[in-house]
């Protein structure tokens, strides 16, 4: 077991004239949550696609779980699971069938039991026998993440896991991600929501114009700005506080 789950050095990638990545470096410690922040088109998805062996780099190296993505792609695939930007679930199958399908493709035994346990854990037991085309966006995302957990891969990539979700679904996803990290899984997530990185991540890196321009803990990042000025402001509830007070959800 190596202490770093993901090591990325000098990653470069161009699409014709467009230099998406211009030398990306970062490491992710085992069992931590690492957030890759950046605006749309900053190259976050490109990094994820390279790390999950879907795309080849032009230059630089990357290892996942100790395996080089270029030379040991099958070992990398054995070590990871990818939850892409759009819930990649089979609409025509039921939720349970989706889970059984992934469990079979991971060559596990007792696939029915695995599926039932995950349905329960993600509050989908009642919906398990229904076709996914009838699911809400939040249920789809939960199923998507449940599919990623099958076989307990040591490293999980989540590409914008909460984009397009309502606040309740977002908090459910956050809870699932925290549980994963607590169980020792390394999570690399991309997001364009700053508060998501703030709530979840042990370390945050900002990808801008093809390079990592900042990489550190939230406290370290906050030190980059001049010290906070102390002001007394009446605390107004945020719309999120109001929303949860009314609908009865919570963090």
């Amino acid at each position, binding site marked *: 077991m190596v202490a770093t789950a993901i090591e990325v050095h000098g990653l470069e990638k161009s699409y014709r004239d467009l230099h998406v990545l211009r030398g990306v470096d970062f490491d992710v410690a085992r069992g931590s949550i690492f957030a890759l922040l950046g605006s749309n088109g900053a190259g976050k998805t490109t990094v994820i696609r390279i790390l999950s062996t879907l795309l080849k780099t032009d230059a630089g190296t990357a290892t996942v779980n100790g395996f080089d993505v270029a030379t040991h792609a099958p070992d990398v695939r054995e070590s990871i699971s990818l939850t*892409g930007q759009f819930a990649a679930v*089979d609409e*025509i199958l039921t939720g349970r069938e989706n889970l059984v399908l992934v469990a*079979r*493709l*991971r060559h596990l035994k007792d696939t029915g039991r695995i599926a039932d346990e995950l349905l329960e854990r993600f509050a989908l037991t009642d919906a398990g026998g229904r076709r996914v085309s009838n699911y809400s966006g939040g249920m789809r995302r939960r199923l998507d993440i449940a*599919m990623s957990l099958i076989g307990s891969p040591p490293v999980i990539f989540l590409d914008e896991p909460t984009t397009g979700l309502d606040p309740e679904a977002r908090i459910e996803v956050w809870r699932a991600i925290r549980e994963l990290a607590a169980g020792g899984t390394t999570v690399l997530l991309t997001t364009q929501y700053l508060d998501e990185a703030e709530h979840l991540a042990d370390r945050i890196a900002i990808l801008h114009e093809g390079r990592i321009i900042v990489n550190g803990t939230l406290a370290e990042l906050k030190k980059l700005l001049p010290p906070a000025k102390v002001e007394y402001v009446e605390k107004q509830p945020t719309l999120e506080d109001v929303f949860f007070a009314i609908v009865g959800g919570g963090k």
Partner: protein
Amino acid sequence: MTAHFIGDTGTLLGRSLRHVSRSLDTIVTTAIMPIAFMLLFVYVFGGAIDTGSDSYVAYLLPGILIMTIASGVTYTAYRLFLDLRSGILERFQSMPIARSAVLWAHVLTSLVANLISLVVVVGVALVMGFRSGAGVLAWLAVLGSLLLFTLALTWLAVIPGLTAKSVDGASAFAYPLILLPFVSSAFVPTGTMPGPVRAFAEHQPVTSIVNTIRDLFMQQPVGNDIWIALAWCVGTLVVAYVVATGAYRRKIS
């Protein structure tokens, strides 16, 4: 990795067959247009067409079966396109599976779905008075030719499935294939066609395949046509397979 090829293909085949069984309309729509043409030609045009054979249904059926396959394989392009667009293909590719299993599962699904459509069309032909004295071996030869033709066209369908920009684009490739039987010996003997059309009709693949199946049904010796038909099918299969797997590799890495 390749050790899992058969198991992974089986798992993914089960998935696509569920898609087929949950949208049986795809089988019906595949069969309905060839059946409509069969009704039209037998009961409207057929009386005025002199093929020199006793039963026009029997003369027509091989071409109708070719048409059924040509419209059936469009669903392979369609399903593959949807897999690509929904992102589920990427999910499969990021998993420890035999990568080619994804394509083979779609291809085998096409064979099964087309076989069902063909049985439906032959069933309608039987109701319309189609009879054949062909023996078991001849029927097996018909089945083999049709499956080989389906396999070749399915691999051809994989190419637009992987490269198309829209759903319509993914299935548009089939229109020329569906119309090809009209300029062949499928509906009328080629002898009455004007020179250049006749030359095209007699040298395009549908004619040799149709003639072979027709001879098998009518218990005639198949002659050279079967070798020409085989050459067309195997040639198309090899070229389509190479291009399709090449497109697949470019798509996934």
